[in-house]
């Protein structure tokens, strides 16, 4: 049974042309999959469909063999943790309280139990948020907020994480730590789909790339196959180049 599969998935917003068309892919093992593509290519919409936030107009999204939209919401959220692109607004709660929202799918009692708190402690430690834990979420910077939302997703302990541009507001140090975290979560047996724009980091850190263009999946494979300069140039309309340094590491750069 596959971890996740997309079978000819299509979607459009009312009165607008299709955002996604005929998307098909199968994931059979824990991986870090970076979803790349120009603005408006349908990356966030694809995550929304997998998270059950939107219904596909055609085709099926399956999570562990089951149609994602037929799985009860609470159960789906125990399988999939979704961190959206848009941050919650003026949330008046502390970092700890925000992280603990990841435990809502595990029970609707009035109070969190010891297991919930253990999960929160683990998530805070893994995302290195100890110094922020008592601070009010609304008072944090954009990058700090993103780390807190990431911690909430980790606290949710779902086997699949759907992350929409989790590094958009991060400085280089925190961005590198984020990718370290994603790889360690993969090693712990989780499947991670991450929408990202920094292609060089995606090429270095992801196991697999899904390249979207105008709602179509135009490349699917390891970075060396899915990110050929000619394909990237066709999609993004700027020239891309692979480089190798003296230590044998490869880098992707772009620009005229």
């Amino acid at each position, binding site marked *: 049974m596959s971890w996740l599969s997309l079978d000819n998935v299509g979607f459009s917003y009312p009165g607008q042309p299709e955002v996604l068309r005929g998307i098909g892919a199968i994931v059979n093992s824990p991986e870090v999959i970076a979803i790349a593509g120009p603005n408006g290519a349908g990356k966030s919409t694809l995550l929304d469909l997998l998270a059950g936030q939107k219904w596909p107009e055609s085709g099926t999204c399956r999570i562990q063999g089951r149609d994602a939209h037929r799985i009860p919401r609470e159960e789906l959220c125990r399988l999939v943790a979704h*961190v959206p692109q848009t941050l919650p607004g003026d949330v008046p709660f502390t970092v700890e309280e925000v992280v603990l929202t990841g435990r809502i799918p595990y029970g609707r009692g*009035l*109070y969190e139990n010891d297991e919930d708190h253990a999960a929160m402690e683990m998530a805070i430690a893994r995302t290195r948020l100890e110094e922020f834990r008592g601070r009010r979420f609304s008072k944090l910077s954009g990058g700090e907020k993103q780390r807190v939302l990431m911690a909430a997703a980790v606290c949710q302990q779902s086997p699949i994480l759907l992350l929409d541009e989790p590094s958009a507001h991060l400085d280089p140090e925190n961005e590198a730590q984020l990718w370290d975290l994603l790889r360690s979560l993969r090693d712990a047996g989780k499947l991670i789909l991450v929408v990202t724009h920094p292609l060089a980091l995606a090429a270095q850190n992801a196991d697999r790339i899904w390249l979207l263009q105008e709602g179509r999946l135009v490349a699917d494979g390891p970075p060396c196959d899915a990110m050929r300069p000619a394909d990237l140039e066709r999609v993004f309309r700027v020239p891309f180049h692979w480089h190798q340094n003296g230590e044998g590491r490869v880098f992707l750069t772009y620009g005229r």
Partner: protein
Amino acid sequence: MADDLRHRARWVLFFSVLAAVVTTVICPFVGGSGMDYGKLWRQEAPDWGIAVNLRIPRTLLALLTGAALSSAGALYQSLLRDALATPSSLGVSAAASLGAVIAIAFLPGEGSSFPLIWLSALGGAGAVIAFVAALGHLRRFSAFTLLLTGIAVNGICVSIILLLHSLAGITRSFQITHWLMGGVDAVEYSVLLLLALVLIPVFVWMLRLSRTLNVISYGEVWAAGRGVDFKKITWQGFAAGAILVGTTTAITGPIAFVGLLVPHLLRRIVGPDYRLLMPASLFGGGAFLVLCDTISRSAFAPLEIPVGVTTALLGGPFFVWLLWSR
């Protein structure tokens, strides 16, 4: 942290209930034209009758109404993710008032009988919720758009109320004016029982929902991503608010600012967590309206001022201060 929250919740509940109990026990016997406590102790007329048939039911009505309006305010502030939201914001209060005024103005015979006004007020509040639900179903409405829609609904309802007021005969016009001033009067115990039977299940539902209300206040996408059926909870919450406001408005008339003032004041004391705020608003709102009613019948005794005037005089300046300090 779990134990800390439980500990705080116990204390918040204890002090809220204490405030409600103390005001309910003391306020019937103070203020107004004064009471002969000796006669009261000996259960002699007229003081015993005044206490049992007038003051105590009036206090219990204020307690239930304050609890309903305040908790409905807290509920709507979570659902609409706006600190200034109340049932008035969606036009629910105005629609309930319109329903009640239609009953007073047009229903034959004893137009002011409670069940008819109650059903009519509930019908008005329910119609607004159905209208907003239909709009939300046809087009995806943000909380802000819903609030703007509420302002429009308020305006329409107030205009129709004024129209009915001018068309009604002199007797009914006076009844409408008196009812619109918002007041807590003595009611029969059977009415109080019916009110309690309607309100208490809604109170229990809201208290049990308080952890979910915390997540709802993060917005739809985040709440849905944590397993919350956002739309279902939102519409259930609007309906619950309509029941609370429609039921109490039918008896007391519109009473302003309780749903805004009490949750805000308490939010500054107990914090934003609905597991603390909801029980505090419930019992604190009851205590607040009992106090306001005592002020209303004591400030210019033997004259009485409608409790809606007292809450508006207290709430109006508070609202302005809130806008400035936001």
